[in-house]
């Protein structure tokens, strides 16, 4: 049992447990609403009665009967025994509810009145005492008290037995002095709410002067504090309207003060405060008129006077009549001193006591006295280091100060801080670029300037006499410096045009090793951002250039790369370093680039960069049912980032700034727009903006786009252009073919599109673009287009420098790919040049039908409008010596021969188509096999049908393959 109880004691159980659910018990239907009735323990319906009847049923179903009928329970048949007399107790007439916990006779152990806490009784007693005083016959309850049995609780009895008397406090007896103080404080704190007998006693004691030594007194009784919380929203002390007071007529009860204090109210209850007011028996008041016994009938109808009300918000100063005038402190204090206690006496709110000790007032110190001649304006005297400022300024400052500033500058005002100091004070980031104009100059220029400056400063030695000529000299010097800078820039520009690599390297070195570049810490322009490795190498190169390293280039290049790649990268780096040499970049960092190109480019339209191939070809292909490569164009297309998100697909071009097809700007009103052009002529004609463009952050230039998107294309293209440039440089040196290079030349590498396979074929057949330009374009256009050959070379070089996204890794293999799969963008087309070009360009197979073809086609199809790209591509290139080319590109030989062969074979269009198709197949395969280029694969594909079969390998489905084979057979 004990253990059981222990185990039970560990847990506490509340409520009745749910019945355990049985597995196969059928689900009980919910009880409908009409069956949900309230029943008591005996199963009787609990009838809810009206509001007055308490809401429980009585009797037996609200009858006086019982279950057995209307038979009294006390009935006893008199045959056996007589019914005994029964004393009916109240419980006999009670229901179970009455005997329950909440009934009127609960059957449970409760404290009886004797033992209950006497507090209720005390309050009742006090209330009775008060009412007895205010009763019509004063002291009429005294009789009741006398008659009524003294009912006091057990505690009171015990206390009495211990010597306690009514009205005394509980506790040890105290000496008189203490007792008096206590009594005083008690009177103050609780006013006359304390029992009257106690207060009178204390007053009696107060009166007596005799203080016996060994007499102790009982402590003062304490009225229990009322802890009822304040739940209403009334102000403190608000009592509400007392209807008794309102109806109580008479002259004194003129105005109802809602905020009378407790003491007032109790006083009024005691009938003490109202002078001349007697308690009247009987009914009196406003509505009752004047009785026969009344003396005064003057104020029957209650009249309230407006002077009883406050007319000023906030009230008036009570007591003193000093309205609005703040009296001196002493006056107030003195007045309060004696009036305070009296003023607060009996007016303290319930629950508040008068503070025994005063609040400490804050000591406020008066402000210091100002001297008489104080002017409340302060200005900082500029203290200038005379040695650092120009003499003129120094003199001006001195005169302004009124005395010679001989003292050392101790603390500078803001006027003498230079921009750097101010920047430091303000915590701004340092401006990138040089801080002075002189930083922009080259070293020698600066030296020259300083040498110019020195004599003048020498003359002005001594006490620093300001010469007005000096400042002028400085201005002149600045002008000279600017001119020198311009000259140097020009020189740099011209040096860039010089093809000599060594010279360029020297130039780059001299530019970058200057102090300007040193000062420029954060390099803003990153030309090779697309390929981080390359950019890292370029950064290294620039760093070493800054340190003045002579062979910075060689050190920074990747030794693992091939010789050819390194040579290429070398050129690129040098060009990039020259292009973005610190002077230009430092200047540019001072300007914010415009968000929109305006003015010059206002009359341009955005045209999709990738143009579709020729529709005629496709129509022919469709007619021949040669779907596939001929009818398909693949473009770069940028889906919206959100669209990718919605499709649960990673963004193929994260960070791409635009959606849709890449766009390029075109001249709006140029005829050439409406030809199948892939490059705006202005782009090649104006190299300078091209150079700046790639770093443009907001708008992406075409180069960015193509570099980013068609990475592969770029890789394929770059070697070609590089090769071409090399070849051309060599050719220009060798000379014999130089005569052929007159005429408009444009940049072949500008051609961005590698998708334009068919187009090139068409381009060949069209007259060169300069013919159209001669007809349509303005003279300025002509001039720009017919710029010198060297310039065009420069352009190309620069563009290569700019366009720095070329892949570094698989370039050799790419080169092969270019030859085999990639119809190279630069296609050159003068008949006389033709064989040469065929041999020269690595893009041989795609290019160059024999000149006869061109003429034939022209006759066939009439004057077709030429694509402007033909101008771009119709560059007459100096043919390099084959030997030089063979040195570097032996691998291409095979393809070139093939190209030649192809060129010769192209007799009629149909055959051409076939070849084209074959080429595309080759390319397609290339891309599929991930650049595993070998010439054998394309050598094998002799005809289209086989290709079709092979191309079917794409789809893994056997069904499709078989289908294709069937189709192939049909076609054959």
């Amino acid at each position, binding site marked *: 049992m004990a253990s059981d109880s222990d185990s039970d004691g560990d847990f506490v159980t509340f409520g009745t447990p749910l019945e355990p659910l049985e597995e196969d018990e059928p689900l009980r239907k919910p009880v409908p609403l009409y069956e949900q009735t309230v029943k008591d323990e005996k199963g009787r319906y609990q009838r809810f009665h009206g509001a007055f009847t308490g809401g429980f049923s009585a009797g037996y179903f609200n009858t006086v009967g019982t279950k057995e009928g209307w038979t009294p329970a006390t009935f006893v048949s008199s045959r056996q025994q007589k019914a005994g007399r029964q004393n009916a107790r109240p419980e006999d007439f009670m229901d179970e509810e009455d005997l329950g916990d909440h009934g009127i006779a609960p059957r449970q152990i409760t404290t009886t009145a004797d033992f209950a806490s006497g507090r209720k009784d005390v309050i009742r007693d006090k209330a009775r005492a008060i009412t007895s005083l205010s009763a019509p016959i004063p002291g009429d309850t005294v009789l009741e008290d006398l008659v009524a049995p003294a009912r006091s609780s057990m505690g009171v009895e015990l206390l009495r037995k211990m010597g306690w008397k009514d009205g005394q406090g509980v506790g040890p007896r105290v000496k008189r002095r203490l007792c008096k103080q206590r009594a005083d404080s008690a009177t103050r704190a609780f006013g006359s709410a304390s029992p009257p007998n106690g207060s009178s006693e204390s007053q009696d004691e107060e009166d007596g002067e005799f203080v016996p030594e060994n007499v102790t007194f009982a402590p003062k009784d304490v009225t229990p504090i009322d802890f009822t919380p304040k739940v209403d929203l009334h102000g403190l002390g608000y009592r509400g309207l007392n209807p008794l007071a309102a109806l109580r007529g008479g002259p004194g009860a003129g105005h109802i003060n809602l905020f009378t204090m407790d003491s007032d109210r109790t006083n009024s209850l005691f009938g003490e405060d109202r002078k001349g007011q007697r308690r009247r028996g009987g009914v009196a008041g406003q509505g009752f008129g004047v009785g026969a016994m009344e003396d005064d009938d003057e104020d029957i109808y209650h009249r309230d006077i407006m002077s009883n009300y406050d007319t000023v918000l906030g009230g008036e100063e009570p007591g003193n009549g000093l309205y609005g005038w703040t009296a001196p402190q002493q006056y107030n204090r003195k007045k309060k001193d004696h009036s305070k206690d009296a003023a607060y006496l009996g007016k303290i709110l319930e629950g508040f006591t008068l503070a025994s000790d005063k609040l400490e007032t804050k000591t406020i110190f008066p402000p210091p006295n100002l001297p008489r001649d104080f002017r409340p304006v302060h200005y900082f005297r500029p203290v200038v280091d005379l040695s650092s400022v120009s003499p003129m300024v120094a003199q001006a400052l001195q005169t302004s100060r009124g005395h010679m500033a001989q003292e050392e500058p101790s603390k500078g005002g803001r006027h003498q801080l230079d921009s750097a100091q101010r920047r430091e004070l303000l915590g701004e980031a340092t401006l990138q670029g040089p801080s002075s104009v002189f930083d922009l100059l080259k070293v020698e220029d600066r030296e020259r300037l300083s040498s110019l400056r020195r004599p003048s400063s020498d003359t002005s030695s001594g006490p620093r006499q300001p010469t007005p000529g000096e400042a002028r000299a400085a201005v002149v010097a600045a002008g000279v410096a600017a001119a020198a800078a311009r000259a140097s820039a020009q020189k740099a520009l011209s040096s860039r045009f010089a093809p000599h690599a060594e010279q360029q390297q020297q130039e780059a070195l001299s530019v970058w090793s200057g102090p300007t570049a040193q000062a420029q810490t954060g390099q803003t322009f990153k030309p090779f951002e697309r390929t981080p490795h390359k950019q890292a190498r370029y950064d290294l190169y620039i760093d070493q250039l800054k340190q003045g390293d002579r062979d910075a280039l060689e050190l920074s290049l990747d030794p693992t790369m091939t010789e050819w790649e390194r040579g290429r990268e070398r050129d690129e780096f040098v060009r990039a370093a020259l292009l973005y040499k610190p002077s230009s970049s430092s200047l540019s960092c001072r300007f914010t680039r415009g968000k929109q190109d305006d003015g010059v480019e206002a009359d341009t339209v955005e045209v*999709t960069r990738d143009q*579709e191939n020729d*529709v005629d070809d*496709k*129509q022919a*292909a*469709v*007619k021949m*049912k040669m*779907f*596939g*490569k001929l*009818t*398909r*164009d*693949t*473009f*770069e*297309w*940028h*889906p*919206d980032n*959100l*669209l*990718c998100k*919605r*499709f*649960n*697909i*990673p963004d*193929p*071009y994260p960070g791409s700034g635009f*959606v*849709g*097809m890449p766009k390029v700007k075109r001249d709006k009103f140029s005829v050439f727009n409406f030809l199948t052009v892939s490059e705006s002529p202005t782009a090649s004609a104006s190299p300078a903006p091209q150079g700046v463009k790639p770093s443009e952050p907001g708008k992406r230039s075409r180069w960015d786009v193509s570099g980013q*998107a068609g990475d592969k294309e770029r890789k394929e293209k770059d070697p070609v252009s590089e090769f071409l440039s090399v070849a051309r440089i060599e050719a220009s040196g060798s000379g014999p073919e130089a005569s052929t290079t007159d005429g408009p030349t444009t940049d072949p590498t500008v051609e961005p599109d590698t998708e334009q396979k068919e187009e090139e074929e068409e381009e060949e057949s069209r007259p060169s673009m300069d013919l159209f330009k001669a007809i349509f374009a303005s003279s300025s256009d002509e001039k720009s287009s017919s710029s010198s050959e060297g310039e065009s070379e420069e352009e190309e070089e620069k563009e290569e420098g700019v366009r720095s996204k070329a892949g570094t890794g698989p370039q050799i293999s790419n080169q092969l790919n270019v030859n085999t799969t990639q119809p190279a963008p630069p296609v050159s087309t003068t008949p006389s040049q033709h064989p040469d070009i065929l041999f020269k360009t690595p893009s041989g197979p795609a290019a160059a039908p024999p000149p006869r073809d061109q003429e034939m086609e022209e006759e066939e199809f009439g004057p077709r409008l030429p694509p402007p790209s033909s101008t771009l591509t119709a560059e007459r290139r100096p043919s390099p010596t084959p030997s030089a080319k063979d040195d570097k590109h032996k691998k291409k030989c095979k393809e070139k021969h093939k190209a030649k062969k192809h060129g010769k074979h192209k007799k009629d269009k149909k055959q051409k188509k076939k070849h084209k198709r074959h080429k595309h197949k080759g390319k*397609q395969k290339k891309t599929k096999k991930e650049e595993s280029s070998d010439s054998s694969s394309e050598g094998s594909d002799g005809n289209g049908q086989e290709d*079709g079969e092979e*191309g*079917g390998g*794409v*789809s893994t*489905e056997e*069904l*499709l393959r*078989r*289908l*294709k084979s*069937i*189709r192939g057979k049909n076609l054959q």
Partner: protein
Amino acid sequence: MVRTQTNTHTVRYDCCSTWSCLCIYITRFRCFSSSHFLSTHLSPPPLSLSFSADGNYLLSCGSDKSLKLWSVSRGTLLKTYSGHGYEVLDADGSYDNSQLCSCSSDKTVILWDVATGQVTRKLRGHAGKVNCVQFNEEATVILSGSIDGTVRCWDTRSRKFDPIQILDEAQDGVSSLKVSEHELLTGSVDGRVRRYDLRMGQLHVDFINSPITCVCFSADGQCTLTSSLDSTVRLLDKSTGEMLGEYTGHKMKGYKLDCCLSSKDTHVLSCSEDGHVYCWDLVEGSLMLKLPVGKAVVQSLSFHPSETRLLTAMEGRVQVWGAEPEETEEEVVVVQQEKA
């Protein structure tokens, strides 16, 4: 409900010996149609059909500016969605059948709540009639192609009323549109089929040289089916653009008629202006079946996603064609249900 059994005909054909395993023995097509089909969609020409994703429901839209949802098995009209201002040209249901989207000549695309029939969103932006509309797989994007030559991608998740992206590559009206997991296939009147590959970020354009009326993906995702106004249906390899099959014989000269592949990619079906549905063997390219639907133009057809059932629309009447192996038990059951 009055149900009239219009025609029951038996079509037998000799299947190809080599592909016998792949052929469905479509021995008997039974057509049942309800007269209220006719009564609800009044004027015939622009009527498009589509099965819901699970094939239990069909959605028809017509020139009475309304959209109707039918139960396929019972042939009963479940709900009518009205809110368009002009004829409804195309509609599509989401994968979970909770939403519908429809497009109309009133240049709007409307997203509907299926259960309540309320317009969830009304998307304006197209400059012309909206020809085709399609949900993506998760019904997060509505793609709509319009006569204004653009495809607009509407976001159903956000509250924005602007399209996510506008594909304006087409040089003429976009007539047909299909969405796969990560690809978007559009056919345009400029004679080009464009496939937007979102994963690769590429746009592939196939030149057909004739206005495209309908494009489809094959179920295996390797091919695209294209019908054009030169009365040819072409099966193109998706990756290379090569033509794998060409299906001719039907007449499609002026109407924008549908074509589709059977659920298992074994047959190619196309509407025709001569009142027949043509059914070719996909591999052979031979005409397998010429299903006479009526005298007028078969405007739209749709193949059940899993079963061999075919929907055809003609002159405001929708017909459901089912294949019976040999016995007609299934169809009989259906008919009895109809009568009951």
